[in-house]
């Protein structure tokens, strides 16, 4: 079946630098794409989402970019901080599938001093 997947399993970033986490998807029918952050030993936490008819959405220190042509999604974190160390998941959402989320395998972000 179609799935949401991630390019890199681990991303090491120096504190203060910008992070870019990538995600490839295959289901063109998704209505939203969502980013979740999961800290060690905890449940995932919603960060930001983007509707499928948008190209870019900005939040606090985070920006989501959506390229539907190549089916690529990215999460950019500005001025990465130690508290940003976590696993980041992209997920796809379709309103006609009752709202179930399909998660990718995740990217581990490690922030170094």
């Amino acid at each position, binding site marked *: 079946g179609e799935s949401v997947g991630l390019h890199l399993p681990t991303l090491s970033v120096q504190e203060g630098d910008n992070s870019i986490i990538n995600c490839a998807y295959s289901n063109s029918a998704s209505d939203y794409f969502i980013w979740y952050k999961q800290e060690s030993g*905890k449940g995932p936490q*919603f960060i930001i989402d983007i509707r499928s008819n948008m190209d870019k959405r900005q939040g606090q220190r985070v920006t989501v970019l959506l390229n539907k042509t190549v089916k690529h999604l990215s999460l950019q974190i500005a001025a990465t901080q130690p508290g940003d160390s976590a696993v980041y998941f992209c997920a796809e959402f379709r309103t006609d599938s009752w709202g179930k989320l399909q998660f990718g395998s995740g990217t581990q972000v490690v922030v170094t001093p």
Partner: protein
Amino acid sequence: SQTIHQWPATLVQPVGSPLSLECTVEGTSNPNLYWYRQAAGRGLQLLFYSVGIGQISSEVPQNLSASRPQDRQFILSSKKLLLSDSGFYLCAWSRLAGEREQFFGPGTRLTVL
């Protein structure tokens, strides 16, 4: 404010033993409830979801079952655990069917020996 609880936090069980994991939500009514399993280093797999008391939908055939005896209580069970049931079990809730933001509990780490 809404909170979601899961217990136990960790559990070690022998193969063939029964299982009961509990999830409760506070501060909201008629939530949609979800059970996910997360294998080590992997994404989240949706196991069950519920839109109301006694209403359970299963996503994948497996050794587990779910029940919702009360509006804000969701239980994950097994009669006989398998080694492959080991993992991190997460309960989540959302306000409405089709609501794309899900709120996750702290999870239960299950090890089957």
